């Protein structure tokens, strides 16, 4: 007859192993899917499966940061009525 305590411990370590596997996989995905040597970082908008437009969004990000840095610079744009 199986020692019940032994079985419970086995079950617990089995579940722990599954949790470890889950975390390990997530850690791998976290790195391999987004990091490493990334050859292209632009957004590709594919129209009918043809990669047409590379968006230079990084340029936008840069300009906006500059905008943030210029405190007190024309905020009047926001106070105007949006069309």
């Amino acid at each position, binding site marked *: 007859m199986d020692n019940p305590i032994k079985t419970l411990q086995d079950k617990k370590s089995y579940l722990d192993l599954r949790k470890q596997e889950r975390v390990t996989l997530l850690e*791998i995905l976290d*790195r391999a*899917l*987004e*990091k*490493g*040597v990334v*050859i292209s970082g632009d957004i590709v908008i594919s129209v009918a499966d043809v990669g047409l437009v590379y968006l230079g969004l990084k340029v936008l990000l840069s300009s906006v940061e500059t905008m943030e840095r210029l405190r007190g610079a024309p905020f009047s744009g926001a106070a105007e009525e949006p069309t």
Partner: protein
Amino acid sequence: MKIYAYGVIDSNEKIDETMRGLNDAPLFNISYRDIGIVVSDLNAQIQKEDKKFVLKHEEVVEKLMDKFTVLPMRYLTLFSGKEQVLLMTKDYYDDFIENLDRLREKIEFGVKTIWPGDLIRERITTAHRKSDNLPLVASSSGKSFMNEKFENYKIDKEFEEEADRCIAIVDGFFSKFTSEKRLEKLKTDNLLLSASYLVDKEKKDDFKKAFEELRGSGGDLKYLLSGPWPPYNFIVLTKPNAKKFGSLDMVDSVFQRKDRT
């Protein structure tokens, strides 16, 4: 028929023929000057989310890590042929050399920290509502809107300041042993810190000991250590994409370099 790339290594020699890649295809090293790109032929369509393939990719990269300095490719980096691989390598050669030199004999460790973010945010919110120190007399709709936004803004700000304090403490355990780090804070409200540390191979045990100290430091934070990894988070490419747009700070990255003589 495509070519699947696993990583850049600091060797232009043939690699061990028993090593296998995705779909059990043999690995080979496409050499360019004094470095090489480790690849395999790929026939099938691969789905991004296919667990089996990501694990295989990682397994290959880690095997390479045992023998070489390796810059792991992002998963699913494909080329249409050997020519394209060589063209890419020519373009990025200087970057690859810089990275291989900088990352030689180094490994990456991951440290994640979970804190009771939900509870902390609640506590801050309650405290703010209680003290009722709204800056404006809310007599009209524009002002009421601004009041509400402002309150949220203050709560967010305090929450982040609290996070920064805790992160500094956690980070303090490891700074001694690392040459570079990347800290991502509050990826979710509860995931206080997701950090990657670049550590000399010989300091591996020191780092692990520091983690044990952190873990034993008490409090209701939870910690996770992972590694050693190939240096996914420490690849720095300066061309051609980034270079086009001038100097751009990597927004969330924080890194320190030891002065090299």
